[in-house]
């Protein structure tokens, strides 16, 4: 294989951060016109490597070769000049700007002193038509659905004549149907000579779309292969380094009394628009109800209403047979609600407080942790020692600030806190987002344990695999409505995907 067939090659890339060797002598080759998947767990170093390639980080060591020639990439400018375009996991689009303004930012077309948006819009229309990525240049980005925003990002790269496209976890926010659409676009791009690097942690997608696969673990490349030579199990073991249980082991559910009952719940957002429309469902003790759905369909608001962080326009919520007032989180906690929040650093923890204080964040005002307004630090410390041991939180001491812990350990602190109270209802919202496989396994085990102990569990997750493996019953949320509530084993993943994208059950053929 001669050098000219390599669109991009990097050798010996090393990148250090304080305390972490993010990339350790990484070599990577991208052939022209191929789709090359870069696979690894969270924290494996894939995003770091791509940020290095895009010039956002400068490597401590290493060299770049574009089309066989040595290249210097010191900032995004150089990368763009070399034909590299990047679509980040969290979009780099200014929400209040139009599509055209976002696309030309940094490469503006001007007429004299003023911006020439007309020419830009024309060029964008041409480009989007050519690649089958239709976008409206006048549209305001924040009004666009996520899938279209992604297209804007891709057009943005093509506008700058990208020949190498890096896609960082592009499918995280898409429905299965939108993923198919993305794959179609990717194949069209490669037919036109664009080479694609596709970063992901989703094994099935890798096998479906990529031409070659590179696996990273803890900053090192552990191997390269092709879909023909491996399977899901093989990839998972390369990613993690040991045998991995891809399915959660659990007994069949034995649901008893209804714990949570939601009737005709409607929630408005700040602008008065319905984000949750008239939904009703129940969760019984001893079962897990999983709510599947792409983010942005009202799940966040639903959880906020159920956990006392938001009010509802109408409807009723009953917990243990008693009607629950809205916006009273303490009342709910005292009634037996446990909540693993979506954003652990924003809602779940106060990072500068010690682990011990975080462990009593919902209960610090009650005996034994406080008496008549005066805190009892001894009791808090003892509680912390106990829980840190019980839930295997890796830390030198429970007095260390929670901000010092890794993501997985932070989540364990939250889990320890929420599960150390008697749990009637557990609401777990994206509980394993951004975690390593070990932590994911642990948290799944804990959730099953609570279910078997008689708790009612409401699981909200955008990871379809997680919902499918943990839930006993599955509901799908789309545009604020519950479009189906079924037993988990009575529905296939593709049917779920269709529901998540808005088709109705009747419209699907069995």
């Amino acid at each position, binding site marked *: 294989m001669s050098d000219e067939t390599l669109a991009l090659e990097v050798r010996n890339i090393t990148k250090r951060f304080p305390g972490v060797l993010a990339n350790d002598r990484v070599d990577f080759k991208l052939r022209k016109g191929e789709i090359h998947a870069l696979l690894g767990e969270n924290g494996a170093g894939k995003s770091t490597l791509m940020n290095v390639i895009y010039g956002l980080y400068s490597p401590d060591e290493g060299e770049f070769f574009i089309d066989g020639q040595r290249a210097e990439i010191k900032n995004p400018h150089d990368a763009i000049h070399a034909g590299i375009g990047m679509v980040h996991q969290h979009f780099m689009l200014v929400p209040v700007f139009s599509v055209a303004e976002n696309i030309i930012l940094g490469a503006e077309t001007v007429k004299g002193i003023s911006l020439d948006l007309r020419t830009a819009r024309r060029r964008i229309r041409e480009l989007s038509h050519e690649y089958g990525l239709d976008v409206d240049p006048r549209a305001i980005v924040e009004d666009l659905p996520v899938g279209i925003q992604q297209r804007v990002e891709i057009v943005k790269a093509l506008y700058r004549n990208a020949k190498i496209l890096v896609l960082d976890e592009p499918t995280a926010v898409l429905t299965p149907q939108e993923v198919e659409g993305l794959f179609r676009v990717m194949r069209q791009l490669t037919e036109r000579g664009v080479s694609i690097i596709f970063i992901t942690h989703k094994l099935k997608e890798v096998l479906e779309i990529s031409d070659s696969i590179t696996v990273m673990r803890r900053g090192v490349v552990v191997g390269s292969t092709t879909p023909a030579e491996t399977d899901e199990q093989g990839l998972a073991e390369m990613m993690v380094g040991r045998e991995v249980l891809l399915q959660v082991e659990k007994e069949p559910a034995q649901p008893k009394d209804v714990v949570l009952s939601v009737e005709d719940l409607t929630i408005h957002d700040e602008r008065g628009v319905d984000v949750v429309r008239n939904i009703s469902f129940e969760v019984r003790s001893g079962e897990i109800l999983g709510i599947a759905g792409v983010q942005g369909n009202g799940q966040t608001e639903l959880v906020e209403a159920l956990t006392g962080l938001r009010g509802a326009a109408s409807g009723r919520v009953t917990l243990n047979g008693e009607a629950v007032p809205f916006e009273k989180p303490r009342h709910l906690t005292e009634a037996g609600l446990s909540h693993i929040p979506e954003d652990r650093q924003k809602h779940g923890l106060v990072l500068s407080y010690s682990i011990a204080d975080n462990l009593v964040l919902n209960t610090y005002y009650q005996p034994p942790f406080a008496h008549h307004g005066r805190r009892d630090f001894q009791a808090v410390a003892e509680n912390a020692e106990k829980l840190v041991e019980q839930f295997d939180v890796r830390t*030198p001491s429970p007095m260390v600030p929670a901000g010092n812990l890794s993501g997985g350990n932070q989540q364990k602190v939250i889990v320890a806190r929420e599960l150390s109270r008697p749990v009637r209802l557990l609401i777990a919202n994206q509980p394993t987002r951004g975690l390593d496989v070990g932590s994911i396994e642990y948290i799944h085990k804990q959730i099953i344990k609570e279910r078997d102990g008689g708790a009612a569990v409401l699981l909200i997750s955008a990871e379809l695999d997680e919902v499918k493996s943990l839930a006993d019953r599955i509901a799908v949320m789309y545009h604020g409505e519950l479009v189906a509530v079924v037993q988990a084993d009575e529905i296939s993943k593709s049917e779920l995907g269709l529901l998540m994208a808005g088709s109705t059950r009747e419209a699907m053929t069995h």
Partner: protein
Amino acid sequence: MSAEQKATSNSGQHQERGWLYKIWQQVNIPLAAVFFALLIGAVLLVISGANPIQAYAALFDGAFGSMTALGRTLEKATPLIFSGLAVAFAFKAGLFNIGAQGQLLFGAITAAAIGFGVEGLPAYIHAPLALLGGAAAGALYGAIPGALKVYTGAHEVITTIMLNYIAINITDYLADGPWKDTSAGNIIARTPEIHETARIPAIAGIPLGFGLAILAAILVWWILSRTTLGFDIRTVGLNASAARYAGIRVGFTIILTMVLSGALAGIGGAVETQGVVGRYQPGFNAGLGFDGITIALLGKTSPFGVIPAAILVGAMRAGASNMQFTAGIAKEIVDVIQALMLFFVSADMVVRWIFRIRESGEEEKITLSSGWGHQ
């Protein structure tokens, strides 16, 4: 000493080293900040043709040179401790109470009104009553920006500054109008003298007000570190979303914090009226609003740090008149030095870089800008 060592050591000697080390950690940056501020102040003095050594000597002499000077320093420090406590307390909730000055003015004039307006009460009722009145006035005036922030999202920086100007106007009016001293020969805008029974005396040269300030600092420390209310306040300041999730009523906590902060400032004003001035006279403590901020930050927003910081600034103010008198240097240089201290203590990374001090890593970082325009 690592966290592990601290947690497991139990011999007395180890603990004492830990104690001292902890204090040094708290104090090194503010000390360096003061040093640099004085240094640059000296440069400015030289530029304007003055002798810095002479100036600083006069400053020191006027502050600590005699028992009277010391008394004056403590006198000046007293309202500063209260302002500093007020600002520091609000900081803990993530609030920037620049309005301590206005709250202080209302406290001062209310205490004066109770002091001269109410007759026939014994001292042990009259004086505390006036103090309470001052506290209540400050508390009410502090509630206003708190409520505005919670219900309308208006950032307290601007509202409190506006309220300061409004407070100056209202108290000016009161002192020049309905509450004016109408005794023979008086044309100045001021209230009548308060009765003896409302006065707060000095004991052995040390103003009792200073003792009250120390007590207030201890009370604030106790509330913040030992009570659930303190936990609420600090959590709101560090992470309002997590606080809401923890069941804390964020809006209520913000208003309550501003009320208590205002009360502290109000007591400071009352103490000034009852212990020093003996009446309310406009202009008696202009500019204390910003003093409170400098002191709170110099003291690292800790109630016990406020005390030495206030004594420092009080000393500078007490000494400034002497410096003006004997060395002929305008008092305002003290303001400049104060601004420089504020800069250096906030830009602690500058100081750390110069002295190669490492970050201790365990400090709580409160941001004040998070409430700007976002609700």
